[in-house]
């Protein structure tokens, strides 16, 4: 693990890539999620991220460690924004290094899916017309303290 942070400042791919590049591994995979200027036909002014920061930081670190252990990645760096994020800005960046491409892709995808499925973060979309709403979320489930939820995903799905 090189980094697992919830931050209010802007984040950049370069910064994250540098954190995982120095091990000399053969494969590096980066995922970046950005706020879009339009959602479901409406012009978005800003996406406000609310986080249970202490818990989210713990979970982000756990997700990164799981990606190393389960997927065979060597290095994982992940940053998630909190606060106001404007269209075009990155909200989530994940960088992984791995000896092989399959492990790299699997680890990056694992981190992204787990972030979406269990990170205690909520987002309120604020539109250009001044209205706003909480975006639909995913039930993180009610689990025992030591149970790590596994989610499967369909590579070809949405």
């Amino acid at each position: 693990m090189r980094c697992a942070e919830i931050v209010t400042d802007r984040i950049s791919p370069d910064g994250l890539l540098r954190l995982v590049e120095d091990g000399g591994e053969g494969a590096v995979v980066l995922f970046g999620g950005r706020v879009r200027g339009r959602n479901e036909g409406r012009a978005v002014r800003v996406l406000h991220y609310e986080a249970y920061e202490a818990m989210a930081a713990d979970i982000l670190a756990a997700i990164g460690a799981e990606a190393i252990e389960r997927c065979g990645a060597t290095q994982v760096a992940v940053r998630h924004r909190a606060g106001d994020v404007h269209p075009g800005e990155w909200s989530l960046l994940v960088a992984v290094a791995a000896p092989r491409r399959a492990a790299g892709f699997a680890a990056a995808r694992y981190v992204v899916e787990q972030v979406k499925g269990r990170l205690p973060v909520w987002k309120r979309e604020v539109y250009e017309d001044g209205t706003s709403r909480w975006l639909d979320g995913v039930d993180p489930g009610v689990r025992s303290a030591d149970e790590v939820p596994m989610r499967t995903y369909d590579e070809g799905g949405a």
Partner: protein
Amino acid sequence: MRQVETGIPIRLLLFGPFREMAGRGEMEISVPPGSRVRDLVDQLRSAPPLDALPAAVAVAVNRRFAPPDRDLAAGDEVALVPPVAGG
């Protein structure tokens, strides 16, 4: 009065839509001795402002997701976790 004296003090955290429902993000509350997570949720749902809590609500105790039968202890930080929307 006796129940209040022997109640277990809990720090309740509320986020996102639940925070808006409650009108605040943090509450100090008291639950009867022997209460579990499900008892706390039932108690909250029994009266405003959180009477509209969904039937199944995820709960974290001390920053970890906890099952409904988890016992509560004095000083626990209990968070009601709405459906999450990271990424």
